[in-house]
């Protein structure tokens, strides 16, 4: 029996919404895959493209950036900046041939524990058939 591939996901979660949403999923005892390495950031707008590239470089099979819904940003407009930047990075990574499924963005509010688990479940399901990410990985 071959062991099923378990993708490693690095998730940049904003402190005010998505991270709180993941906490809610946790304290509510919702079940979701344990493939995520969460990194709390102050705002999705603070996620530099370099963080994302670096996560791939250090062996992430998928990267998720998650922030507050538009209009809900604790810093008023951080998530709008993020939306623009991530759109560009997504196009760039697609252009150089990285599978577009490996890089995701989501809006998850502090009340959406259920949505958080759904996002992760979907992401894991999409990553499993792709196998390990070796393209951008150091020594990969």
């Amino acid at each position, binding site marked *: 029996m071959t062991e099923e591939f378990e993708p490693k996901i690095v998730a940049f979660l904003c402190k005010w919404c998505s991270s709180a949403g993941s906490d809610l999923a946790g304290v509510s005892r919702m079940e979701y895959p344990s493939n995520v390495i969460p990194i709390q950031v102050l705002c999705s707008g603070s996620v530099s*493209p*370099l963080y994302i*590239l*670096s996560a791939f*470089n250090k062996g992430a099979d998928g990267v998720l950036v998650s922030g507050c819904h*538009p209009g809900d940003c604790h810093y008023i*407009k951080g998530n*709008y*900046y993020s*939306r*623009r*930047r991530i*759109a*560009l*990075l*997504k*196009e*760039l*990574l*697609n*252009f*150089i*041939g*990285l*599978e*577009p499924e490996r890089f*995701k*963005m*989501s*809006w998850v509010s502090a009340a959406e524990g259920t949505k958080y688990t759904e*996002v992760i479940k*979907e992401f894991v399901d999409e990553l499993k058939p792709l196998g390990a990410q070796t*393209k*951008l*990985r*150091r*020594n*990969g």
Partner: protein
Amino acid sequence: MVALEDLKQEAKNVLEGGTVKYIIGYKKPAVGFMAVPAFFHKPEDLDALVWDPTCVHNLVLFLKDEKKKKLGQKEPDERPVGIVVKGCDSRAVNVLLQENYIDRENVYILGVSCGKTGMVDLKKVRKYFKGKIISQIDFNENESFTVTTTEGKVEVPAADIFAVRCTECITASPVIHDVLLGGDSVRTPENPFGSLEEMESKSQGQKWDFWQEQLTKCIRCYACRSICPMCYCDECVVDTINFAVYPDTPAEEKAQKIKWVEKSPTTSENFIYHMVRAIHLAGRCVDCAECERACPMDIPLRFLNKKLEKESKKLFDYDVGYDTEIPSLISSFRDEDPEDFIR
């Protein structure tokens, strides 16, 4: 078409009158035919000034040095620097103005129009004139160049030897200038992003194979970064010391600084470097393609920047280097920005 004598006269006027401290322009090299950047401090030096289709360099790059030099001086000469600027280069001036890196009164812009053609691509010229010794290339009124070799003069259709970026150019004459030579020249290329199409139509696997081969060649000489007028950061993520160190910076802090990219020119590290550079130039790159020209390893770097230029236009309707009053691409947003990719 720009008359060289007019350009020299304009340059002389401002240098003699003391309006500018010096002029950045082009001159002939000691050997060969491709013009090189030149710094003219005295009016009599200006006899060496040239303007022809080999003036490929984006001289706006040297405004970075000027700014850094001025910062180090106690009583700097506040007069502007004269600079010869093509259409594409003029948009680079605009981006620097938009980002408040320079002030309008820091530069005196001698705008030159490329007319119906543009700049030659040295690789194409070498291929076309295999083994022949070229002494001069000149503009013509029509869409061709006159090339002088040891065997005489020949007229060459521009399309055969000029740079790909010039076929996609929409600003053949400067959009900002103090004097404009050669008149306004409007160009409407059929497909301003045509060179990207072949690449975009490839499968993910083919795209990866292409870029893996190309970027693995990189020897990390950083010529692409160094020649870029937009790469003016004091600290760059790829440098071994990528943060400001002061005499009182404690050792622990130095030791704990993150090393984002290793010095090894391996595929993974080269990708980080080139991806970061491309993203940093989104909404700032004016497609002067100097990075690609400078690259000693023939990596088609322009593609990366052109792709992001295309997406900025498509997704955010953003044009680079025309309006100095609008906020830059990634420090602004619109409510209607696309978010169909977000879950």
